């Protein structure tokens, strides 16, 4: 018997009420914008239940397939990307789609919809033929799924046009298959889960739009090679002396997600469910600010558990208070008007400024500017605050980035 331990915040709710964090996404009224991605956390009924009970607004059940579809896993699935102090900044996986086929998923959708009528219950599908895609979509529509997500981007799958190529790496294939799914899904919203590993993500997003789908889930994991063991020269993970490419997720890929979501938002009117590297409320708010109407989390949940929802909701609630936004919807795309091509940026000059009160005289800024900048900081000895040489500082901002003290080095507008 597996004992489930409840988190304490579940029993002792905060006395401070949260702001209303509801937002409409593809016509569905979400209680907050935080959804569980199609992943291990949504592949067992009891686990999904716990997540929804703890306050997640919805879940995309792990990608399902037609009965008889083989899912041949090999282990281990996970490889971490760690930095100096063993901190886990990124995670690679060689997981595949769910071992549960559509019949099981339909039953789960029905159960969850009954138990959680106000939560978004979505399912992710992957087919190998027009008939398979359409059967999967139609079956889920009839079962009452709130949304259908189509995995066009599983890096391990070979269900694209050519072996080893992902469906979403071809605009033509994406449009064709997306159209089949939307036909079968009818009024049920359809999201296409794309891959960021393409020459131009706008082309793929436009193909999804042309197909009549409701939106995309972006940017997903990034194809990667997690490392090489230097004793055996077998890359990571070692699978019987061999290895393969992983799907890279976690904090490390957040900037890639921001880029991809922003590009799609500029190119189309699609609804975007943002995912990939979102670990906390700031990440979530940033991804929404570049155009995502909701966000999906996976790796952060797999690492720290469903409990992170308390930080997500309370952080977002305070953000609304601080920014004066009326609701979460006002956040969506709020950063986009400020995003331009480099050519269209205003030309400005800034100059480094070192706060003498907070400077700890580590002189890391001096070294960085000397060897990687413009030799524009003067070293004045161990006990002295280094000095910016105003005539030499071009304002690159490297010093501000390497300074270990918060807000000690700032770039001042000239």
């Amino acid at each position, binding site marked *: 018997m597996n004992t489930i331990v409840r988190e304490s915040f579940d029993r002792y709710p905060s006395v401070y009420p949260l702001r209303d964090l509801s937002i409409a996404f593809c016509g569905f009224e979400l209680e907050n914008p935080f959804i569980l991605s199609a992943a291990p956390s949504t592949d067992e009924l009891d686990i999904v239940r716990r997540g929804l009970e703890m306050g997640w607004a919805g879940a995309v059940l792990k990608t399902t397939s037609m009965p008889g579809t083989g899912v041949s896993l090999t282990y281990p699935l996970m490889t971490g990307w760690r*930095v100096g*102090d*063993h901190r886990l900044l990124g995670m690679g996986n060689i997981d595949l789609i769910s071992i549960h086929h559509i019949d099981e998923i339909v039953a789960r959708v029905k159960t969850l919809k009954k138990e959680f009528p106000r939560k978004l219950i979505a399912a992710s599908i992957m087919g190998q033929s027009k008939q398979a895609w359409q059967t999967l979509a139609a079956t889920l529509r009839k079962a009452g799924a709130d949304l259908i997500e189509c995995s066009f981007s599983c890096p391990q799958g070979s269900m694209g046009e050519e072996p080893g190529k992902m469906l979403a790496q071809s605009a033509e294939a994406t449009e064709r298959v997306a159209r089949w799914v939307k036909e079968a899904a009818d009024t049920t919203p359809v999201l296409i889960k794309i891959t960021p590993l393409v020459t131009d993500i706008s082309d793929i997003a436009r193909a999804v739009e042309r197909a009549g789908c409701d939106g995309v889930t972006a940017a997903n994991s990034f194809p990667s090679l997690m490392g090489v063991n230097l004793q055996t020269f077998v890359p990571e993970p070692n699978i019987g002396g061999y290895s393969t490419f992983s799907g890279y997720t976690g904090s490390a890929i957040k900037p890639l997600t921001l880029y991809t979501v922003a590009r799609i938002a500029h190119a189309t009117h699609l609804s975007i469910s943002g995912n990939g590297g979102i670990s906390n409320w700031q990440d979530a708010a940033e991804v929404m600010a570049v155009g995502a109407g909701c966000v999906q989390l996976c790796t952060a949940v797999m690492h720290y558990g469903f409990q992170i929802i308390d930080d997500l909701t309370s952080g977002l609630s305070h953000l609304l208070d601080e920014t004066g936004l009326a609701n979460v919807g006002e956040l969506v795309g709020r950063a986009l008007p400020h995003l331009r091509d480099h050519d269209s940026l205003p030309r400005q000059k800034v100059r480094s400024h070192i706060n003498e009160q907070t400077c*700890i*005289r*580590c*002189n*890391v800024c001096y*070294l960085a500017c000397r060897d990687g900048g413009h030799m524009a900081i003067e070293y004045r000895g*161990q006990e002295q605050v280094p000095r910016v040489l105003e005539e030499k500082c071009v304002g690159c901002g490297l010093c501000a980035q390497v300074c270990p003290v918060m807000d000690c080095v700032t770039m001042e507008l000239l």
Partner: protein
Amino acid sequence: MSPVPLFTHTQALAEACRCLQCFDAPCIAACPANVHVPRFIRMIRSTNVASAAEELRSANAFVSVCGAVCPEDVLCRRKCSRGRLDIPVDIRALHRFVTASVPAKVFPERPKPQNSRVAVVGAGPAGLGCALALTRFGFDVTIFEKESGIGGIPSMEIATARIERTLQEDLHAFVEWLKFVTSKPIRHLPDLQRFDAVFVAVGLGKAMRLRIEGEELTGVESASTFLRRMREKSPGLTGRRVVVVGGGNTAMDAALVALDAGAGVTVVYRRRQLDMPAWPEEVREVVTKGAVFRFLETPVRFIGKSGQAIAALVQRQELGPLDASGRPTPIPADDPPVRLPADHIIIAVGAGVETALFPELARDVSGHFVVNEKGATNVPGVFVGGDAVHGEGTIVTAFAEGRRIGEHIAEFLRRT
């Protein structure tokens, strides 16, 4: 002094990542051996611990001992820039992690010796520092040591088993580089006439005495004798009620050894706690292990029965005018002396250079040799360094000074 905690790999990585990698890092200058602290910490971060060990061993032959007993709170760590942000990096624990993780690696083949021959008198930290530097420059060095083993005070008087083991490994790493003549006391320059230069690093061989009645009783001995005896366990602790007289590093070492052997220890010091030359960390450990401190008191007589010490009479002191060290001079108060029962009294009130050694060399009033900033004496080609010049210092300071004077000796030999 007990060793610093030994980090696990995970702890070492976490601590190493706190290092800011300062430019011209103040910790380097604060280390007497100028260990490049940010560099060895950077190597820990990339799990290049073998190179970190080479870095440390190249800088200091007593590397394991320093990882265990270096007073970082008064040296590198006190200057750590990270301390201005939150808490300074635990440099010594990282140092210890490196030396404990990587076995001592024997030095590579020594450079081919040149013609000039150098004699080093004393195989302690200063002597070894100098000898290693000169060997590296290609000089032909012979080390004379009056004891049967090498390593000096750290070998003979720093007592814990763990330090001793690592020290022997450290010394073994470069023993092939050097020519040792052990059990060979050298007392006069004429003994060394066939050498082109001489480095005298004889340390402090003469324990100071209190010059009070009863000092000759059985059960009264110097800390140096006590520590050497305890290290060789011959015969071990003789008393149960131990009085240690003094407030320096050696006094704390003696108190710790006596405490660890199961004695009750009272430390009698003539000044205040804040005047103690011992490092706060050592004092804290002695207190934690149960020693009782009596400050502003000094023994005036030891009382014996049938030739065996049974008590110390101590006299309360008052604070007088500041002396040359900037501390108030202790002045005897008018109270009658207090009787402290004691069956073992350890005198740790400092040590001096043996009076008869090297009569050719100039001394100052306290008996230390007089040298210029390069360690040169009044006799050309003869240099002195270490405790014999400065009085009791740290291992790393003496080693680094020997190394530095070795460079001056090399310069002297190239000129002549």
